[in-house]
C-alpha cells in the first residue's frame, strides 16, 4: 500500500553544510531512526540495516539506498528498498530540495513510500502515522547534528 507525505524543515546551517551532511553516511546513519548499519558502496549507493516497528510488526529491514538526480548543493532524490523477512517489504523515495533562507537552509521533502506483506496487513491503518513520526525523527536528528552547539561539541 502506498502513501505520500510532504513537508519542510528549517535547518540552522548554510546550504553547503546541509548538502555535505545529506551525503555523509555517518550523519545519515545517526539520523535514520533505528538505523544499525549504513555502509557506503559508492558515492551514490549504500547498504543499510534498520529496525522498524509498525504497530504489532517489528522487523529488521535490510536493503539498499541510492542517491540520484544529484544537483549539488540544491538537492537530490534518495530512494531505498528493503526486505523485512516475513514482515514484508518497504520501498520508497524522497526528493529533497534545499533553499537559502535567513539564518539557515530550508529543506523541502516529498516522500513516496510503499509497503507490503505483514506490515501492510497488520499495520495498514497505522502506516501514515508511523511514516510521519519517522520523518519527524529523521529531520529532528538531522537538524540536531547540524545545529551550532552540536558542531561545537
Amino acid at each position, binding site marked *: *500500500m*502506498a502513501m505520500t507525505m510532504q513537508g519542510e524543515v528549517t535547518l540552522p546551517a548554510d546550504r553547503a553544510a546541509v548538502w555535505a551532511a545529506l551525503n555523509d553516511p555517518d550523519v545519515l546513519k545517526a539520523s535514520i531512526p533505528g538505523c544499525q548499519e549504513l555502509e557506503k558502496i559508492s558515492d551514490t549507493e549504500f547498504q543499510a540495516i534498520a529496525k522498524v516497528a509498525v504497530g504489532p510488526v517489528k522487523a529488521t529491514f535490510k536493503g539498499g539506498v541510492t542517491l540520484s538526480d544529484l544537483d549539488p548543493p540544491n538537492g537530490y532524490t534518495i530512494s531505498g528498498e528493503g526486505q523485512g*523477512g*516475513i514482515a*514484508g*517489504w518497504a520501498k520508497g523515495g524522497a526528493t529533497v530540495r534545499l533553499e537559502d533562507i535567513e539564518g539557515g537552509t530550508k529543506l523541502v521533502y516529498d516522500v513516496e513510500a*510503499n*509497503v*507490503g*506483506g*505483514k506490515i*501492510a*496487513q*497488520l499495520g*495498514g*491503518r497505522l502506516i501514515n502515522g508511523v511514516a510521519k513520526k519517522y520523518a519527524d525523527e529523521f529531520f529532528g536528528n538531522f537538524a540536531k547534528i547540524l545545529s551550532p552547539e552540536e558542531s561545537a561539541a
Partner: protein
Amino acid sequence: MTATGIGAPVRRKEDQRFVTGQGRYVDDFNRPGQTYAYFLRSPHAHATIRSINTGPAKIMPGVVAIFTGDDLAADKIGGLICGWMIHSKDGSPMKAGPHPALAQGKVRYVGDHVAVVIAETLAQAKDAAEAIVVDYEVLPAVADTAQATKSSVQIHDVSPDNTVFNWHLGNKDETEAAFARAKHVTKIDLVNNRLVPNALEPRAALGEYDPGNDNYTLYTTSQNPHVARLVLSAFIGVAPEHKLRVIAPDVGGGFGSKIFIYAEETVCVWAAKKVKRPVKWTSDRTEAFLSDAHGRDHVTHAEMATDENGKIIGLRVHTIANLGAYLSTFSSSVPTYLYAPLLSGQYDIPAIYCEVDAVYTNTAPVDAYRGAGRPEATFVVERLVEKTARELGQDPAELRRKNYVTQFPHQTPVIMAYDTGDYAASLDKALELADYKTFPQRKQESARRGKLRGIGFSSYIEACGIAPSQAVGSLGAGVGLWESAEVRVNPTGSVEVLTGSHSHGQGHETTFAQLVSDRLGIPIDQVSIVHGDTDKVQFGMGTYGSRSGAVGMSAIAKAIDKVIAKGKKVAAHVLEASEGDIEFKDGKFGVAGTDKTLGFGEVALQAYIAHKFSGQDLEPGLKEGAFYDPTNFTFPAGVHICEVEIDPDTGVTKIERWTAVDDFGVIINPMIVEGQVHGGIAQGVGQALLEGAFYDQSGQLITASFNDYCMPRAIDLPSFQVGMTVTPCPSNPLGIKGCGEAGAIAAPPAVINAITDALGHEDIAMPATPQAVWRAAQKTRMPMAAE
C-alpha cells in the same frame, strides 16, 4: 411426533462436548515424533522468483527440512485442481492456469506459498523461514475485478487478458425482444463485496506416514474428507487412494471454505513421507485472511423489463466475477451454475439472459462461501425488484406478489424446474409478523426523533440438495453429487449410522439420529452418527450447498428401509410366519392379525445369533448401505423483511426488526433450523453492513486482521422473528429442502433495500458502514419532521 422423532426440538447431542471444551479438532491431535510446518508466503502480489536460497535457513536450529516447488515437481506431485469445467460462449474450455502447491517460478498473490519449513517446533520453523532468501522480480499487479481484463498485467500464460471464461445462460434474442416491448426498464449497477470466510477454527492439517504398511493418514479441516482423498490421490498424486486415510474430526465451521483442497494439506501429507515424521500445520488468523478461499466479489450491471401492468417480462445481467489468482476446487461453478440459474428468483420471468466474465486477479482464490452464487443472484434480483417498485410507485410487497410463480412445477428460462412452493403464503405471514401495516407510524415516530426509518424486502429462492449427478455432470461437474449411508445395527439393538455427510456445526449427530429414532422406534441415545473418516465411511460427497438433509438423510432413510426389510425377514424366521405377513410398526415387528411381536432389539439380536434361521436363504447380520442420488434440486424459499433506523448524524444503521418466514419443506428439528436461520442472517448482515475484503492497487490485502475486517457481533443484530411455512419437497423421501444458507442469501438485499428506503436513495454499496451511510445521508438529507 415422538419426543426425539422428526419435528422435535431435540437439544443438540454434540453441544455437550463443544461447550465443555471436549471437542477434538485437528490441532488437538498430536502424533509421536511430530514436526511443525511453516509456509513462507509471498509478500508480493505478483513477482517472478529469480532464486530461492534455503542454505542459511537449513542450518538453523531445529530445522528438519525445507522444500520448495522444485521438490514437489521432482516427486511429480501435481498441481491443485478445479473440478468443474466451464465452457465459454464460443465453446472453448475455461483457461486454467497451473496451480502448484508451492510456487514454481512465480507468485501470483500476497500469501501465495513459496516454501515450507519443517522443524522441531513452530518457532524454529518461523525463525528459519525468516532466513530464506528469495530473490523476487516484482511485477505490476491487478487486484480490481472490473479492471482485470483491461490491465496490461498478465497473471497466467494461458490467459493473456486474464479472462478465465466468458460464459452465458438464457435466451438472448427472447430477452432482447422483451426489453424492446417493455413499458419500463430498471437498471442497476452492483458490487457484491468480497468476503473472508473466517470460520472460528482456522484450517489445519496433520500428515503422517507409516512406512511399515505404506499407509498415509491426513487429519484435516475438511467438509468432505472423501473428496479430499480422491483429489489428493487421483489428481495431485500424493498417495494411492487405498493407502490414504483422511480424517476430518470435529471441525469448527466451514461456510464453504473447507470444501476445497488446498496447498497446505497436500504438502503435509507429501512431506510426512519425505521427512519420515508426522508434519502438522495450523493456520494462524493472518494466514486465514490471506489464503482461505474468499467469497463473492462480483461486479454486475443488470436490467429488469416490466410491462404496463408491472409484470416482469425480462431480465438481463452482465457480471464480472473475480476468481482470484488461481482456480480453487469448485470456483468455476459458483458464478455460473450456482448463480445464473437462480436469477429468476421467485418470479415468473419469461426471458432471462445472463453473461458472466470470470477473471483472474492478483488476489486470493475465490470459491464457494455460504450460499455460493445464490446470494449474488438474490442480491441482483431483489435489488432490482425493489428499485422497480419504487420507480413504478408500487408497493414492493405487492409488486413481488404480482410476479410470483404460482403454478408448479415451473420451468424457468434458466435451467431450474421449481417443484413446489407457496410464495404468497410466506409473504402474507411475513407481512403480518413484521406488522407492515403500521410501518408508516413507526417511520413517523423515528422522524420525530430525527432518525430515518426504512423497510426492505427480500423474497429469495435458492437451489439446494446439490445435486442430481446426471444433471451436474452434463453441466461440467467432475463428480456426482449423490450421498451414501450405512446403517449398522448392533446385536444389542443400538445403531451406528455411517454417513458421507460431514458435520462442522450443523448438528447432524442430533438430526440424523432423530430420523433413525423416528423410523426404527428406538431411543435417540441408542443411535450414533459416524462421519468424517474415510476408513470408517466407505464414500461420501460431504456437506455444502444445504445438501446434508435433503441428500444425506435421504440416503440414510433409504438404508433404514433396507434394514427394516431385512428385519422383516429375520422376524419371519423367528416368528415362524411368512415374510409377507410381517409388519413393522412403532419399533416392533409383528405378524399381521396376531399379537405376536418382536421388538427391534430382539430382531437385531436374532439377526446376529442366527439360531432360528432355517436354510441358507437368509444371511446373518443387520447392516445395510444405500446411495441416494437426488432427482432434482430442492427449492427453499421465503421472505425476509428488515427494518432499520438510521441516525443521519452518525450514519449508524440499527436493525430494529427482522422477520424471516422460510419454507424449508419438512423440518426435522425446528430448534436447529432456527439456529441455522439466525446464523445465516448474521452472516448476511455482516456482508451488508460490516464485512469487506479490500486489496489496494498493488495487490496488498489491507483488511487482513479483525482490526480492519469487521465481523458481526450480537450487538449488531436484533432478536429475529422467525416463522415457517411448509410445502414438502416432492423429490426426496423426507420432503426436506435445506436451510443452511437461506439467511445468508436472503439478508443482504433486505438490509440494503431497507437502508435505501430510509435514505430515499437508490444505491449504497456494501458494506454499508456508518461512513458510507453518513455520506449518502448528507446527499439526500431531508428536512426533519417538526417536533
